[in-house]
């Protein structure tokens, strides 16, 4: 049994030579397609005063949910632990953690001070190397921000072991849905990436669609039918104050997205039945036309450096993906596979474009390189659409709608390797997710 486990471990650490057993740095290479999740232990954090007892347990649980939720890590339950961690500063009994095959050990301590100030400390250990991985870190905040502190701990652990940026301390803005399919009520809502701390930002008197964060997460663009016609609004997250960006009678505007500097919005405007791309300077309201074609041009998304825009167009006869300069000009088609391609979104790392694909009556979320090569479909269902990237560019959230009269929409996440497809916990129906950047 032990030998089998060791073989699996070495498979994680040395993907090229699964039979080899030797000491190695604690590391997961996400891009290589992990075979087996890395076993780790996160005992309850040590409460440094009596008031911190509950929150110390809760924080360790959220850290574990974050890590295990990635599909890259597997928690060894407390019932299997040999050592108890009762002091943050005592030496770690590595033999006890090796014996239960914990590759990584996360210890922490929490104190709840007067005035509700919460201080969280943690360390990560590479058990088989018998040493700490990185240095201990400390976060402080208010008690009601305890989940964020747990997410920050998990982000640091994830980052140290994978070498990638984390994504747990992030939020998602989406459309909360209720009611039957032919009488659906929609509200803009915001939540933590894991579905906690839901807040509704609009009521359901008007159809609202496709909210998108600003690059710093302080503002949200969305489309609303408040006037009876689709119009773009910008909403301030802190104050929940909002304003219409433009009211041009006889037109519809939708599919807005911020530029990486947050100063410009690219969007679709429909006039006389024809939909083209425009940009607008948020401060002045001045707009500029980017495309002038009789075809549908929509779903634009900026490259991370702001120099280019990926969008969909049916100028070839069906929906396909194109890239052009952010100031307009001749676009280059990048999608050439069978079927229709829509809703492209540029990865925050710049290397990939995520998209929705329709082929033979099925919908897929997929990724391709920005030159259209290496297309990879990650999902398949009756209706998947609208991918949004996690801040680290490794996970995609999207909408999945089930078929039939009782069909409902839910949010799902999937790794860019196509692994770890999971439903995001939401109250009721949910669609059109947009992931925030990592919070400060």
């Amino acid at each position, binding site marked *: 049994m032990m030998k089998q486990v060791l073989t699996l471990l070495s498979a994680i650490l040395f993907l090229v030579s699964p039979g080899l057993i030797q000491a190695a740095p604690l590391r997961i290479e996400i891009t290589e397609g992990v075979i087996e999740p890395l076993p780790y232990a996160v005992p309850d954090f040590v409460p440094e005063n009596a008031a911190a007892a509950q929150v110390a347990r809760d924080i360790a649980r959220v850290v574990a949910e974050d890590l295990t939720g990635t599909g890259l890590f597997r928690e060894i339950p407390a019932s299997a632990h040999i050592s108890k961690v009762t002091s943050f500063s005592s030496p770690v009994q590595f033999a006890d953690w090796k014996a239960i095959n914990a590759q990584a050990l996360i210890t922490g301590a929490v104190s709840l001070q007067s005035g509700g100030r919460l201080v969280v400390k943690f360390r990560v250990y590479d058990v088989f190397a018998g040493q700490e991985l990185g240095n201990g870190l400390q976060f402080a905040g208010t008690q009601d921000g305890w989940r964020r502190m747990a997410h920050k701990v998990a982000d640091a652990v994830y980052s140290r072991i994978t070498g990638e940026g984390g994504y747990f301390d992030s939020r998602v803005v989406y459309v909360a849905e209720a009611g039957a399919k032919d009488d659906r009520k929609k509200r803009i809502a915001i939540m933590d990436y894991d579905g906690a701390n839901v807040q509704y930002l609009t009521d359901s008197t008007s*159809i609202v669609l496709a909210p998108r964060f600003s690059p710093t997460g302080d503002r949200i663009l969305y489309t609303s*039918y408040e006037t009876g*016609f689709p119009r773009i609004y910008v909403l301030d997250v802190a104050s929940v104050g909002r304003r219409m960006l433009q009211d041009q009678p006889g037109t519809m505007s939708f599919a807005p997205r911020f530029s990486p500097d947050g100063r410009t919005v690219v969007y679709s405007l*429909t006039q006389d039945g*024809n939909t083209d791309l425009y940009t607008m300077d948020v401060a002045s309201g001045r707009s500029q036309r980017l495309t002038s074609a009789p075809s549908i041009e*929509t779903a634009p998304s900026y490259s991370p450096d702001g120099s280019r825009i990926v969008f*969909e167009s049916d100028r070839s006869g069906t929906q396909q993906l194109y890239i052009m300069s952010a100031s307009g000009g001749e676009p280059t088609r990048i999608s050439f596979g069978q079927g229709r391609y829509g809703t492209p979104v540029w990865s925050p790392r710049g290397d990939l474009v995520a998209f929705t694909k329709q082929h033979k009556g099925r919908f897929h979320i997929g990724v391709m390189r920005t030159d259209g090569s290496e297309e990879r479909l990650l999902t398949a269902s009756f209706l998947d659409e609208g991918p949004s990237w996690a801040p680290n560019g490794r996970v995609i959230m999207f909408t999945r709608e089930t078929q039939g*009269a009782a*069909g409902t929409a839910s949010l799902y996440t999937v790794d860019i390797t196509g692994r770890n497809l999971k439903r995001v916990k939401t109250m009721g129906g949910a669609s059109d997710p947009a992931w925030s950047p990592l919070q400060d």
Partner: protein
Amino acid sequence: MKILTRAILLTSALALAACSSPDRFRGDEVNLGGAGGSGSASDPTSPLYFQETVGDRVLFAVDQSNLSYEAQSTLDGQAQWLMANADYNAIIEGHADEQGTREYNLALGARRANAVQEYLVQQGVAASRLKVVSYGKERPIEICSQEACYAKNRRAVTVISADYNS
């Protein structure tokens, strides 16, 4: 949208019972029900007559916005009615079925609504009396996930409105 706030969407109790009012959701519209200002279905000047006898909607093929012969025939009737009843304006609502991405379907619904508007204007209806809007796949009237339902959802509906202050 001053006109909209003053406008009253005229519908009938019959229509309300027949479908689940997908096109009537805006808070600033007042649903009059059957007994109010929509008149009787036998009164050829009534919006109810327009809806039931002239026919308020045309259907489209998958991913298309061109008007079939049948659709053109319905729109000929709509144009005649609108020219004969100049007190009324109309909003043409374009819709798509659920097989498509949200943004594309909004644009597709706009193409359909625009095709109807252009046809009505060609037949002599003043363009100033017609507005267009697309709901994409947001307001299906049939909710099964089969072609029988999709065919009815790929539609453009001419919704009669009256500006009582004009």
